[in-house]
């Protein structure tokens, strides 16, 4: 069995188990810490897919940014020492049935479709290609993304401020 296969199954196991912990844990802060393992293992999956830049971006942005923001949100909105931190699930049975149905349909479609598979060029760094693509083909989305980030920055600053009467 090749090493990539073992690595894939180990990473997939970590991802699924910690995502289940995110979803089913009663304690919000435990969910946030389980999300940490999920995001890290997903960046390992990107390394297996030879997407080195995406893997680093995943660690820097998701683990270093979004997860910290979420933990800040948990700590600002719930009293840590209180029981209030615990949260209940709502309509568990119908939503389990709905989600399982959608996952079953998706996996059935995935394994019954004949995908058009072409092997990519092996062992090539992607950063050069991504940089060229971002500044040539995807220049307009790139600029629009910067505007979106500016709008989000101004918007979240405006939301978070106390409005004085």
């Amino acid at each position: 069995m090749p090493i990539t296969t073992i690595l894939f199954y180990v990473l997939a196991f970590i991802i699924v188990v910690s995502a289940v912990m995110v979803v089913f844990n009663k304690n919000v802060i435990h969910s946030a810490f389980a999300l940490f393992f999920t995001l890290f293992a997903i960046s390992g999956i990107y390394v297996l897919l030879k997407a080195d830049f995406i893997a680093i971006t995943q660690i820097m942005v998701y683990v270093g940014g979004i997860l910290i923001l979420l933990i800040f949100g948990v700590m600002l909105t719930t009293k840590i020492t209180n029981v209030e931190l615990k949260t209940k699930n709502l309509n568990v049975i119908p939503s389990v049935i709905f989600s399982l149905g959608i996952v079953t349909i998706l996996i059935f479609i995935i394994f019954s479709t004949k995908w058009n598979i072409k092997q990519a060029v092996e062992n090539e760094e992607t950063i050069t290609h991504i940089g060229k693509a971002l500044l040539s083909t995807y220049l307009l989305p790139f600029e629009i993304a910067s505007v979106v980030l500016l709008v989000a920055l101004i918007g979240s600053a405006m939301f978070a401020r106390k409005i004085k009467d």
Partner: protein
Amino acid sequence: MEIGLNHYLALGAILFGLGLFAMISRRNAILVLMGIELILNAANINLVAFSRYNGLGVDGQVVSIFVIILAVAEAAIALGIVLNLYNNFATVDIDEANTMKD
């Protein structure tokens, strides 16, 4: 057994299902946000897997960078909204904050 495109897509589908379950059933607004992050990550796994196995070059990876950018913007804005919700209702339970509905 060699790992193919199907395995990555199945992993993405399972992650999507878990995120969907979190979005539907959790009552804490921050956990709903975590479900959204799981769904966006599932989409990213699919994009990168297609870009690796379908001869798309780096196009899929570029799109997944845009997905990450939008996820960051969404997380910042949504947490601002959740903090405002907490200031107004003193809870982040999305079932309690239903003044607009009544």
